[in-house]
């Protein structure tokens, strides 16, 4: 046991916790003012819902003793046996309980990311049921495959330092399923030729949220080293540099493409960079990180534009930023990873190991398919039983009033 490592991971857990309210502000600023509280609430309430589920059975399913390389068993239900003693397969230097509570924060923010896709139209009660089901049968198994002791993608050698696959691709593709099943917001008609304008009501709030996400992400990525040392420092540096680069490349691309550099573009670029560096953070050097950020900023910007042509209404661009950014990050990890940075990691294509790229592709492909198919079925079933959307009248009045009976701003 190492007190420095324990302190570091506990502080990292607190940083990752702050990302969920940060995400709430990031999303909340982008919706119209009549939906600001409903959007914030769909993130904040997950601290409660997933936090409790995690302690009851989530942690056991995701990280508990392996069953068929697919899921953990129920030995650790109610956190039985998850205490002061380190669990050596995950970390030899921090209490098992510290690892568990750190992972709890990841389990909370991942479903929260999806909420951007259905913003401004989803029914709160159905949302809660969906989240319980999705956490249980999508997040927990996928986390087990990639991170759990005995998980099949971990055994395969897939590199995912802090959750590009488990968190971002997983949530991002579920967001696509949500947008497809749910259909567009009332009045949504794509490129400005529609009757209604979906203008963000408070971009300063969005930028504040992006700042909190960036700050918290140091806990997410550097904390994933699970020890206070050189690897954490390397992941921290890579995280920051990739994000800086993605801010520049997103804003630069839109400046060239549309004539103006935007604040929303800068905030979005930051998140795209953070997403893309997540799988790579502990495996790549600082210059590789800058390249990953530059690529992510450009590709995610183009992916966000593409949704209009593809015709689905992913309200807050969860697919374009998190799914596409996650895929970019996972694949570039297969190019730029090097054992010079992390001897316990692997080498990518540019460091003499072309096979890694294939393994990354398998992990990406399997996660895309599994999460999309299961999420799609969940949405269809809930649509037929509880109904996914509020009524058209409630949608027009705004979800703050219809779902929560309060308003964000009063005179």
């Amino acid at each position, binding site marked *: 046991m190492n007190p420095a490592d324990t302190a570091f991971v506990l502080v990292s857990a607190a940083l990752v916790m702050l990302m969920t309210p940060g995400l709430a502000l990031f999303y909340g600023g982008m919706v119209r003012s009549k939906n600001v509280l409903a959007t914030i609430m769909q993130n904040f309430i997950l601290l409660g819902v997933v936090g409790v589920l995690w302690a009851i059975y989530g942690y056991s399913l995701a990280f508990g003793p392996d069953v068929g390389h697919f899921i953990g068993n129920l030995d650790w239900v109610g956190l039985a046996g998850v205490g002061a003693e380190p669990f050596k397969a995950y970390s030899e230097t921090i209490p098992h309980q510290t690892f568990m509570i750190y992972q709890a924060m990841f389990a909370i923010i991942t479903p929260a990311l999806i909420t951007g896709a259905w913003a401004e139209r989803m029914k709160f009660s159905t949302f809660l049921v969906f989240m319980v089901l999705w956490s249980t049968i999508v997040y927990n198994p996928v986390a087990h495959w990639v991170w759990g002791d005995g998980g099949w993608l971990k055994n395969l050698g897939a590199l995912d330092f802090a959750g590009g696959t488990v968190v971002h691709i997983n949530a991002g593709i579920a967001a696509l399923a949500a947008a497809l099943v749910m259909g567009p917001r009332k009045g949504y008609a794509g490129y400005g030729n529609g009757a209604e304008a*979906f203008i963000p009501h408070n971009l300063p709030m969005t930028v504040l949220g992006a700042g909190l996400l960036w700050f918290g992400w140091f806990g997410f990525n550097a904390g994933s080293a699970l020890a206070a040392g050189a690897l954490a420092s390397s992941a921290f540096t890579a995280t920051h540099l990739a994000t800086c680069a993605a801010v520049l490349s997103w804003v630069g691309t839109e400046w060239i493409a*549309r004539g103006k550099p935007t604040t929303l573009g800068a905030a979005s670029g930051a998140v795209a960079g953070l997403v893309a560096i997540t799988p790579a953070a502990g495996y790549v050097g600082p210059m590789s990180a800058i390249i990953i950020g530059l690529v992510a900023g450009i590709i995610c*910007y183009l992916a966000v534009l593409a949704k*209009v042509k593809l015709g689905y209404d992913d309200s807050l661009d969860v697919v374009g930023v998190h799914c596409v950014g996650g895929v970019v990050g996972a694949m570039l990890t297969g190019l730029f990873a090097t054992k010079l940075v992390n001897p316990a990691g692997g080498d990518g294509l540019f460091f003499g190991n072309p096979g890694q790229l294939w393994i990354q592709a398998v992990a990406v492909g399997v996660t895309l398919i599994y999460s999309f198919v299961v999420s799609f079925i969940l949405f269809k079933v809930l649509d037929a039983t509880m109904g996914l959307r509020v009524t058209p009248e409630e949608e027009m009045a705004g979800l703050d009033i219809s779902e929560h009976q309060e308003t964000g701003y009063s005179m």
Partner: protein
Amino acid sequence: MKKIEAIIQPFKLEPVKEALHGLSVQGMTVTEVKGFGRQKGIREVYRGMEYQVDFLPKVKIEIVAPADKVKIIVDTIVEKARTGRIGDGKIFVYPVAEVIRIRTGETGESAV
């Protein structure tokens, strides 16, 4: 008595207010409003999505004054609020039937 209603550019509120203070105008009411005139609105872009924004932010000033002071007040507002570009706004002058000060019940010009 007349009511002068001026719709001006928000950033012109301060110079207009200062100049009207100089004329010893008794009081004014200011409201943040939105609207459009012949110039119509502007286009805004969010994550590549372009929207036509028809209503632009303006400030509405309302002043009630004796009829003989209307000309100098209007001239002052025109002078101070003008940039010479489209979107400078408009001034409307209306007759006022009655004024009542709520605190004392006074009516007419002394209540202004």
